[in-house]
């Protein structure tokens, strides 16, 4: 048996992978939290940019969610809602990243079957962003 496939080496790779997955999750949540809080502070500290008026008296929302295509432009203008949206996007992409990392992990273990299964899940996740 070559060193690559020995149980000990596999075990180490799995453990290393679990650490990476755990760190991806932690980092994603933390980054998103910071962006969301920063975006909220920006929104209240600045005069609201056009089209970003918040909730009215009944909590009904006057502002629409910022369009994804305008996001880079709005971020450059330091629009609060755009920075919140970026934070939320990071949060939504965190589990997607962790699925992608798992696919790499199964590839390390030369587990073709589960690389396939993981890629199916990844494809469904990517499809979800195309069908909104």
């Amino acid at each position, binding site marked *: 048996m070559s060193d690559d496939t020995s149980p000990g080496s596999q075990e180490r790779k799995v453990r290393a992978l679990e650490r990476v997955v755990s760190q991806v999750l*932690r980092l994603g949540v933390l980054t998103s939290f910071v962006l969301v809080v920063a975006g909220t502070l920006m929104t209240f500290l600045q005069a609201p940019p056009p089209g970003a008026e918040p909730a009215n008296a009944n909590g009904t929302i006057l502002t629409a969610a910022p369009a994804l295509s305008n996001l880079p432009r709005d971020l450059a203008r330091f629009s609060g809602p755009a920075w919140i949206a970026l934070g939320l996007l990071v*949060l939504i992409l*965190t*589990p997607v990243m962790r699925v992608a990392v798992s696919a790499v992990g199964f590839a390390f273990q030369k587990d073709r079957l*589960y690389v396939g299964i993981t890629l199916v899940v990844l494809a469904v996740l990517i499809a979800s962003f195309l069908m909104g």
Partner: protein
Amino acid sequence: MSPLDFTLVTFVVSVVAGFVGSLLGLGGGMIVTPVLTLALGVDIRYAIGASIVSVIATSSGAAAAYVRQHMTNMRVAMFLEIGTTLGAITGAWLAGRIDPQWLYLIFGLVLTASAIAMLRKRHAAGGPVPPDPMADRLRMHGEFFDESLQRTVAYRVSGSRPALALMYVAGVLSGLLGIGSGALKVPAMDLSMRLPLKVSTATSNFMIGVTAAASAGVYFLRGDIVPFIAAPVAAGVLVGATVGSRVMARLDNRVLRIVFVIVLLIVSVQMILKGVRG
């Protein structure tokens, strides 16, 4: 209510929802959506969009800890996620097309069922584990280190097909209502797949985030995740759930549990009434 007041009130409500949700093992989404809609008058679609984001936050935070404890069965999780993500997309798609009245009604019914399920004690199925050729072929059987026994426990997995079907249903509910639907995922793994309880909990938690991401993608592009509502909800539920999981273990006080069940039942009746009357 001024925009600042709305943000502050929503944040505080979400902290409480995340805290109580983690104590009850229900998840913040089940609690925050009724408050946002019934008490603050937020459109239910925006409440659900905000709630689904908070589900990702709490699940990812908790999953980071579980993975390190090696409780999660990654193969089972990945296999079942095919069902949950397809279901989540279906649910999110459906939520954008049906009358919001239906969302109130279905939410109320699911909340009723979850509240009643809280009264039942969680138990593992007894007897020998039935053979499952699919679980053999997909090499799902696993092992975990049991803290209380101080040794590694090996287990066999069964019922992978019915579990996959149940996961599709759990995914639909998650995408439709913006909830984690762990209340459906965990029993499916306990009873159908015969996973050890600790493994089910960790694996379910791991899957909830991925399921929620699938429907959140749909909600985000549809414009139903409104930064002004989602920001205080996501941040609040995350803070509440983190504090809840640190402060104490899951609530096992029977009297308190019954009190919460009664409160949840009253809330579900109001959601159902709103769905029926409009």
